[in-house]
């Protein structure tokens, strides 16, 4: 029984981390492309940018919906507390994603493309902003009472540390968006994004270094954990690996390779994720409520695992198939006709 009480929440923590990682990686490049489109000067280019996402943005966004549902079912307390505490950033994200989604539908039929281009870019930016503040606040910690209910105030999420996380996340999205576009485009458009990718790689690295330094200085709880074995060894390795990966990324960009920059970026995201996961674990509301306190009843976790767990490989399979069908460079304004 004890094994179940610990094992099941851990399994769900890993599943949630997987959904979140897939979301941040996949919709990350969607949002990054959106943010990049704000700087793009001509209509043909923006059209190509949006076409490169046309068939996949919706499936990518669905990982977020999935994560919301899974968090609700597996950790109902955390779902309620975190979302109500982060009311403003969550609705920033929601409105951003709404603008982004309708831009795809309306732009195609509109004669005023500029308006919907702006909705696409600004929506992506707003969504990234909301996600950054939400992520920053969760890592920083949310004020809760012993029962895990939110007792802080409505603007708690806004301070310089969450702002730092937000800016870094936006840089990360621009980076993965750029490397995705390197993969999907050719010619001048591709050249532009070799350049944006280099800039974003460096700004992301600076942000990550600042966060890495700030975390042990400003968070008592994180400091104690970080400087105690075995985590201290892991945290010695992760920044080093991170710098190596950024170096490899920059080298591949300088050599103008097409596929490898995207792969290095994914590995950088993955490494960051593992680092964050290790800092947060075993908390779901750091550093107050553990996954064991917030978890649904073991029966609920088993019930969900039976249905959702089996589906994870299937979902991955048809999502990958979708990418395989639409592999190759984007050309023209539509895939279909």
């Amino acid at each position, binding site marked *: 029984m004890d094994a179940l009480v610990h094992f099941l929440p851990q399994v769900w923590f890993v599943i949630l981390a997987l959904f979140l990682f897939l979301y941040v990686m996949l919709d990350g490049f969607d949002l990054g492309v959106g943010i990049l489109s704000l700087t793009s000067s001509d209509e043909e280019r923006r059209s190509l940018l949006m076409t490169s996402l046309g068939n996949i943005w919706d499936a990518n966004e669905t990982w977020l919906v999935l994560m919301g549902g899974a968090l609700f079912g597996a950790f*109902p307390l955390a779902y309620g507390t975190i979302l109500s505490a982060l009311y403003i950033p969550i609705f920033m994200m929601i409105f951003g994603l709404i603008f982004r989604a*309708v831009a795809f539908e309306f732009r195609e039929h509109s004669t005023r493309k500029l308006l919907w281009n702006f909705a696409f870019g600004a929506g992506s930016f707003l969504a990234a902003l909301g996600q950054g503040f939400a992520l920053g606040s969760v890592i920083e910690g949310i004020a809760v009472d012993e029962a895990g209910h939110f007792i802080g105030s409505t603007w708690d999420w806004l301070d310089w540390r969450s702002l730092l996380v937000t800016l870094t996340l936006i840089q990360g999205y621009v980076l993965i968006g750029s490397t995705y576009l390197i993969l999907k485009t050719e010619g001048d458009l591709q050249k532009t994004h070799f350049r944006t990718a280099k800039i974003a790689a460096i700004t992301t690295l600076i942000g990550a270094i600042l966060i890495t330094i700030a975390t042990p200085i400003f968070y008592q709880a994180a400091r104690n954990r970080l400087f105690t074995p075995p985590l201290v060894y892991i945290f010695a390795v992760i920044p080093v690996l991170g710098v190596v990966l950024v170096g490899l990324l920059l080298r591949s960009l300088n050599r103008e390779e097409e596929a490898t920059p995207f792969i290095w970026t994914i590995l950088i995201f993955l490494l960051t994720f593992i680092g964050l996961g290790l800092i947060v674990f075993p908390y779901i509301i750091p550093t107050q409520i553990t996954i064991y306190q917030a978890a*649904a*009843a073991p029966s609920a976790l088993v*019930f969900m695992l039976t249905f*959702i767990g089996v589906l994870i490989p299937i979902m991955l399979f048809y999502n990958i198939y979708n990418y395989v069908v*639409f592999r190759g460079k984007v050309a023209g304004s539509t895939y*279909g006709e």
Partner: protein
Amino acid sequence: MDVALDSVVLSRMQFALTAIFHMLWPVLTTGMAIYLVIVEGLWLKTRNPDYYRHARFWSKLYVLNFGIGVASGLPMEFQFGTNWAPFSEAVGDFFGSILGFEGAMAFMLEAGFLGIMLFGWGRVHPVIHYLATIMVAFGANLSTFWILVANSWLQSPTGGEMVNGKFIVSDYFQAIANPFMVKSVSHMFFATLETSLFVIGGISAWYILNNRQQAFFSQSLKIVLAAAVAVTPLQIYIGHLSAEQVAHYQPTKLAAMEAKWETSPAGQPADWSLLAIPDEATQTNKWEITIPNGLGYILEFKKNLSEPVLGLREWPTSDRPRMVGLIYYSFRIMSGIGFFLAGLMLWSILQWLLGNLSTEKIGQQKWLLRTWIFAAPLGYIAVESGWIVRCVGRQPWTLYGQIRTADAASQLPASNVLTSLTLFAVVYSILFVATLYFGSRIIRHGPNLELPIPGLDNQPALETEPATFVPDQRPLEAQQ
């Protein structure tokens, strides 16, 4: 109404607004997805290029609606946490799991195959494409299933009990198969079908009436009509069964639906109120037209009631729904539309049997076609009214008989909720107008009847004409 604008009221308004708006889009796309499966299937079977062009034309409207549905569905997923945190914590074990299932089984399936359905025509084999279309339709309808499972459970919670403010589930499958489930899922499934049938039919009628591609749109009108023969009467019957289950499990809702203040005892006939002005202050109807002895016939198809029908006065005000007039009229609007659409179906079938719907003659059926155009939005109105009856009538409970709505809401600063509510109102109004505008633009533009047909293995991929070389006649400078 003398409600203070506290965050509970505002959260309710926000949920109502976002749900009412969101529903407009999937109610069309889930039904229309089945229609797309039918026309694409007909194309693969008959190789008649018209069916292919139907699939392409209607999928334009489909994807417009789908996109707005995705956009407006997102707040639904997160609002339980932001605005209804205590509720989420209390029922997450079951309710959250079901929303998770909806995401993993239904929504992802739909989203994962949509790209292939829309853009994959030239990239995958027609059979794979057809499979993708089927998966989109299956995912959409599975979504209806899980959402209705979750909502039915709120209406009739079973499979566990409340312990210290948390719903402890003892049997998940009993909770899924709650008393409301089968009838509610069926009622909504047929509602999506019926709404999309009359939208497709109404648009087809508009083209025929305007002498545009009459032969082409007679095809879709006839497919719709053939389906409506089964759907419209069945929906009325399922609606009746749903009212029966409300009578059995939620007597306060039934009393509000009928604006019934006084109890009618068993063994006697009772009047049925056709139209009334309910007055909550005096707990009576100020004015009323009744059908003598009608209630027994409506509920049980006989004169005398076999069980008493309780009036609203049986409960203290705090234990029964408010806004009786809204519930009462929403119910009448929904049922009225159900009968109207069935009547339209009968009229059209009669004309079909008389041979008046042939391509040559159908254009003369002006009033029939106008009625179809008029009927296009009615399905939406019926669906929205039905959900108002279902969820306003469930009050004051969120989880019927267990969790009160007032206890379910997050403690939020009212200003936060007021801001998000205002933003939703503004943004959704713009989206509503824009969608109508772009939808009508797609319709005015019409189908592309010159679309090349994607290659099938057993027919020539392209019909080619011998090429003739036309020398460039322009002056030399212009050629460069």
